[in-house]
């Protein structure tokens, strides 16, 4: 389902932490990965390349990559669906690129930050659009203006960057954004009201070709870019067959290097058939569910390389903290009664692990220091419940102040984790004296119920951005704090960590944030999964990281069509 597939751009895994809790470190029978890249991707090399299929080898200069679906929205302003985004990533470049470790490095420009940290000056490199027009600083100004326009209805929210004059443009009559100035054709100056940790990430943007029409209040030109894309990217748009495939061709004048593979096609794969399509040679790369069976089948095929890496996100069970029955001790007890390790093992085998804080293990801010592991222990849980004031009444049910502990869990059908977790949860919780009811709804109904705070307990997953800041989700003023968690101490820690600009200092501050959240258990963190890519071994030099899809650096990949 959608939640489990939310992927996002960026961040990195340090090799050390990877060894401790990494994907690809399998037990039997696959054994250790053959190699682990700097970005923390484990690769199982193909063992018998002679088994490669002609259907794939025939496509000498074309690579076909499987995908889930297309909405056909290829405008960089409006792209929403992550699969449309893969196409956009190949066609458009930004000021900054995302490095393997999730930090921002120079992309289309080099940059200098002022003393007070509030002004960033970009010097543009020599880059041209596909039609030969050179990229100018003014082009970036146009992009910012579209995002700041009140008529803009897309998913990006640049207001988080706190650029000077943003609000005047959005709500007022300003025709320019005060904080965005094109000093000359090659120099762009961006000024923010307040410099925070993620500032560079938040101001990252792409240039808009001068032919795209834009006047304040009229964003139709930006929308039309779906049908008429024009960018600076490594691959140029050729054709979109509705619901079927997208075809792109190499931009030989790409500013970094000419792509080695001439044609790229993204082809829709029906769910569940990803591995089969690679085995048949219909596609060269696809993205099956990271399960032991799939990884094994890929290895068995002989000519498939398996790339396994951590997904930048986590699955959790939300709890409505505002309900009196869910006080801190009770929440801790519920977490202790949840057999997360066995459930994760049952569903994903070695390809998921239990987490105890809302941070991805691929982030630079990851730390396990001082965290309670809440290991599965029913007796411990019973004790905690007792300490919280719950006692068993005459019918064996837990009761406190005249009310029994009833929990209604709202879930979505057709989710592999819930299939295993819910029956186990029900059995364990009821053995403790809790009445556990399960109801199902479809996804938007669930979101609606959760947003209106009508759900007691539910399951969802977050896909994260490179920056580890959890303000929106765990701060009492956070827009996505659907569990209604509120602790002024934690708020302070989160704000402090957000405003610190030195990454080393931030990392220390985040340790405290994770410890605070781990103690409070606002929601029950279940797993962080791995993603697995099945790649035909003829594809070489494929680069990917948990924070940056393989599409961004696809220009570096090449095809070796020999059966060796």
């Amino acid at each position, binding site marked *: 389902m959608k939640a489990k597939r939310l992927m996002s751009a960026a961040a990195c895994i340090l090799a050390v932490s990877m060894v401790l809790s990494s994907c690809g470190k399998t037990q039997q029978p696959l054994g250790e990965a053959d190699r682990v890249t700097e970005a923390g991707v484990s690769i199982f090399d193909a063992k018998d390349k002679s088994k490669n299929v002609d259907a794939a080898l025939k496509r000498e200069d074309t690579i076909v990559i499987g995908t889930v679906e297309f909405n056909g929205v290829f405008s960089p302003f409006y792209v929403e669906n992550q699969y449309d985004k893969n196409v956009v990533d190949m066609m458009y470049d930004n000021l900054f690129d995302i490095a393997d470790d999730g930090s921002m490095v120079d992309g289309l420009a080099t940059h200098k930050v002022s003393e007070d940290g509030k002004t960033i000056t970009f010097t543009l490199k020599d880059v041209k659009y596909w039609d030969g027009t050179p990229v100018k600083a003014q082009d970036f100004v146009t992009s910012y203006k579209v995002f700041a326009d009140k008529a803009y209805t897309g998913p990006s929210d640049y207001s988080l960057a706190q650029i000077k004059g943003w609000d005047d443009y959005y709500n007022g009559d300003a025709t320019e954004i005060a904080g965005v100035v094109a000093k000359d054709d090659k120099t762009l100056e961006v000024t923010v009201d307040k410099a925070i940790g993620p500032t560079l990430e938040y101001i990252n943007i792409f240039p808009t070709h001068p032919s795209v029409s834009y006047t304040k209040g009229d964003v139709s030109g930006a929308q039309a870019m779906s049908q008429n894309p024009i960018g600076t990217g490594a691959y140029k748009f050729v054709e979109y067959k509705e619901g079927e495939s997208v075809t792109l061709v190499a931009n030989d004048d790409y500013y970094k290097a000419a792509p080695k593979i001439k044609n790229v096609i993204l082809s829709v794969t029906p769910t569940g058939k990803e591995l089969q399509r690679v*085995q048949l040679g219909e596609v060269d790369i696809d993205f099956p569910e990271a399960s032991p069976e799939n990884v094994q089948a890929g290895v068995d095929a002989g000519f498939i390389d398996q790339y396994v890496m951590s997904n930048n996100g986590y699955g959790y069970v939300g709890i409505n903290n505002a309900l009196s029955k869910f006080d801190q001790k009770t929440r801790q007890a519920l977490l202790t009664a949840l057999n997360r390790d066995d459930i994760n093992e049952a569903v994903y085998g070695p390809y998921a692990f239990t987490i105890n804080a809302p941070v991805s293990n691929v982030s630079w801010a990851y730390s396990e220091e001082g965290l309670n592991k809440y290991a599965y222990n029913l007796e411990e849980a019973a004790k905690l419940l007792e300490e919280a004031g719950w006692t068993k009444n005459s019918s064996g049910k837990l009761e406190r102040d005249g009310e029994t502990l009833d929990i209604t869990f709202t879930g979505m059908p057709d989710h592999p984790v819930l299939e295993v977790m819910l029956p186990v949860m029900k059995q364990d919780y009821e053995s403790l004296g809790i009445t556990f009811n399960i109801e199902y709804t479809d996804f938007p109904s669930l979101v609606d119920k959760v947003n209106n705070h009508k759900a007691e307990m539910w399951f969802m997953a977050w896909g994260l951005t490179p920056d580890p800041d959890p303000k929106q989700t765990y701060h009492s003023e956070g827009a996505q704090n659907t569990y209604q968690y509120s602790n002024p101490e934690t708020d302070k820690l989160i704000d402090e960590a957000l405003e610190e600009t030195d990454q080393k200092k931030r990392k220390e501050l985040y340790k405290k944030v994770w410890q605070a959240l781990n103690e409070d258990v606002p929601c029950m963190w279940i797993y962080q999964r791995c993603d697995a890519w099945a790649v035909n071994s003829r594809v070489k030099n494929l680069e990917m990281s948990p924070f940056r899809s393989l599409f961004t650096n696809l220009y570096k990949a090449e095809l070796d069509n020999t059966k060796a």
Partner: protein
Amino acid sequence: MAKFLVRRLLQMIPLLLGISIIVFFLTAMMPGDAVDAKVNPNMTQEQILHLKEMYGLTDPIPVRYVKWLVNAVQLDFGDSLTYLKPVTSVINDYMWNSFILSLIAFILQLVIAIPIGIVSATRQYSAVDTAGTVFALLGISLPSFFLGLLFQKIFAIDLQWLPLSGMSTAGANYTGFAHYWDVFLHLLMPILVLSLVSAGAMMRYVRTAMLEVIHQDYIRTARAKGLSEKVVIYKHALRNAMIPVITYIGFSLPTLFSGAMITEKVFGFPGIGKVAYDAIIKRDYPLYIGFTMFVAVLTLLGNLLADILYAAADPRIKME
């Protein structure tokens, strides 16, 4: 007949209006809306609210209905919230794929079901009848995705005779005849699945109807007159047995255009069925309502067609 037609067509107008009100309200009242469905951990409340306003989701439902209706009568069904282009354009993109699939499957279904149904009836309890019955029951007791998955496994994965999914081979750049052949190979399995699954039901209806008719006196009379068995069956019996088949055909008209969601999902076929289902899941109201109204029109027309055909099949039926 002309008066009948005109009367029915005029009746369609208030009907469609009523249907549009019901459909609109039902769709708009579903919990969660298009913005909710896009859940994004970094969207601020202001942005969420702003988006809802821009999409018109904060107006009260009756207001939204009137706005929609005013545009709908001018055949403007708004823009899809997922595809960000006009609803009519989205439907047009996907519908014809489904139509081709469904039409061929439907014809195939008739070609299979009617003869087998007839033979089943004329030779009741024979081997053909038993085989036909078992086959039909298999079709209705197993979910349609089962047959699709089975075919995929056998023909695409194990035997590798046919392609696994989609409508054409990516990266092959076929032109001319090779292209049509490629598309044909891709359509083969979905068509077979669709027709086999429904052929069973139609076959049962044909068989039962024929059994009723075959034992009637006028059939005995026809035989006594010395007419060949073939003429007796196909000219005299079949006509009267067609009533339930016609009813069934009437239902099938809208399905020709509304796509087969499950089969399309299994074969990754770019059809309107999955698009419509996704529209519900993502609460893409303009798209879903536009599509439903289109299917509603076809449903009404389908029943009208069936009613006309009844009179043609059985002249004793009087349509008042």
